[in-house]
């Protein structure tokens, strides 16, 4: 057990990052109770290991990384992730609808919940905090090409679930033409 960081430093981190961290946790876990727990645990770990943050300008990726580790640890322990099979996550570039209307955030969350974590995390980071490919690759300890591929497939999946007219049918596998066809 390490020595906790100073209260002023950790309070500054809370002030600067608790909102994005909570939102990230919510999108990862899909529940506000879990998101609160995850955010608290992430900050507690950050407080305990504050000495590891040598460069304060890296606080945001550092905290996001801690939160993701906490989430993955819990998910492993719970083993309750229900996800669509990896094969169902398409990477086909679909033609777009001429005008896109707003997406219901709850429907988005349902679609995210069904994505495997390996695809959910990059898409959240990508849209949510405008993380670049390089930052996402660092966060997930993956080659940048893998991140790009996963993002493309996750975006195609979300588009098929949320944007296209036949999205509902695709989501439930009733349509003969799936986003994953050809994989």
């Amino acid at each position, binding site marked *: *057990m390490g*020595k*906790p960081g100073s*209260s002023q430093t*950790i*309070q500054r981190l*809370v*002030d600067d990052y*608790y*909102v994005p961290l*909570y*939102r990230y946790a*919510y*999108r990862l876990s899909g529940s*506000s109770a879990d998101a*609160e727990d995850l*955010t*608290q645990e992430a*900050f*507690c770990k950050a*407080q*305990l290991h504050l000495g590891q943050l040598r460069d304060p300008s890296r606080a945001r990726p550092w905290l996001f990384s801690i939160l993701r580790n906490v989430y993955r640890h819990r998910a492993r322990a719970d083993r309750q992730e229900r996800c669509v099979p990896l094969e169902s996550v398409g990477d086909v570039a679909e033609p*777009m609808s001429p*005008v*896109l*209307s*707003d*997406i*219901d*955030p709850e429907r*988005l969350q349902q679609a995210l919940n069904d994505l495997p974590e390996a695809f959910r995390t990059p898409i*959240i980071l990508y*849209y*949510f905090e*405008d*993380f*670049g*490919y*390089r930052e996402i690759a660092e966060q997930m300890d993956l080659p940048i090409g893998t991140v*790009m591929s996963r*993002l*493309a497939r996750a*975006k195609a999946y*979300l*588009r098929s679930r*949320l*944007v296209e007219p036949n999205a509902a049918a695709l989501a439930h596998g009733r349509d003969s033409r799936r986003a994953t066809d050809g994989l």
Partner: protein
Amino acid sequence: MDCKTARLLLDFARPQARELEAEETAALESHLDRCPDCHTQARDERQLDDVLGKAMRQVEVPAGLREQLLARLESERGDWQRQRFARGARRAVAAAALLLLAWGVWYWVSDRATAMIDPEQVADAVKSDAATDPETRTKEALKQLGVDTSLPSLDYHWLACPPALAELPGYPGRKVPMLLFVRGGRVARVYVVREKAIPKDTPDVIPGTSFKAELLPSVDGPYRFLVIHDSADLEWLRPPEPPRV
């Protein structure tokens, strides 16, 4: 710029992430202005990014979360300090217990050693010791001090105590076996020294004003016996003549 490159760069052309160099961004924008297909694809991608990004960020943060977080962190800090104190206290108690145990063991051992002395047993041992010929006893004691030699002809009944290592007077720190003889107020100290330590031309008797020094030989060992005494001679130390038959 061709369409293939443009579509590759489109993935990186995001306003916030700044993953493209200014020149690449300018070249891409120029291509999009000239190419309707790529322009349409870029527009569609950006629309999708906009609606997904907007929906993604629509997460209501619970009121009071900040205060709740700070309170939990403060509590964790308190726990840490309490645990640290408890750990220190546990270590102190463990150290004290160890010290107590060590003292107890030492006390028990020393107590046992003290309690084991039986005067009768000591008296029996002395009696048994006294039954042995004093010259033989002295020889054995010298052996235990590392000196194996025959002894000069002296009356070892007058030995005041068993041989022991003693500092040679005039030679600080140099210890040699010494025999202390006492008889009727006369005292003689006999130091066992190596023969080669005595210069060859040293006389056997060195007279002095109050103390004399005499060198007695060893029959079979490389030793000499330096006798320091304050009597006229060493006749009082000579063994009695065997009765004439």
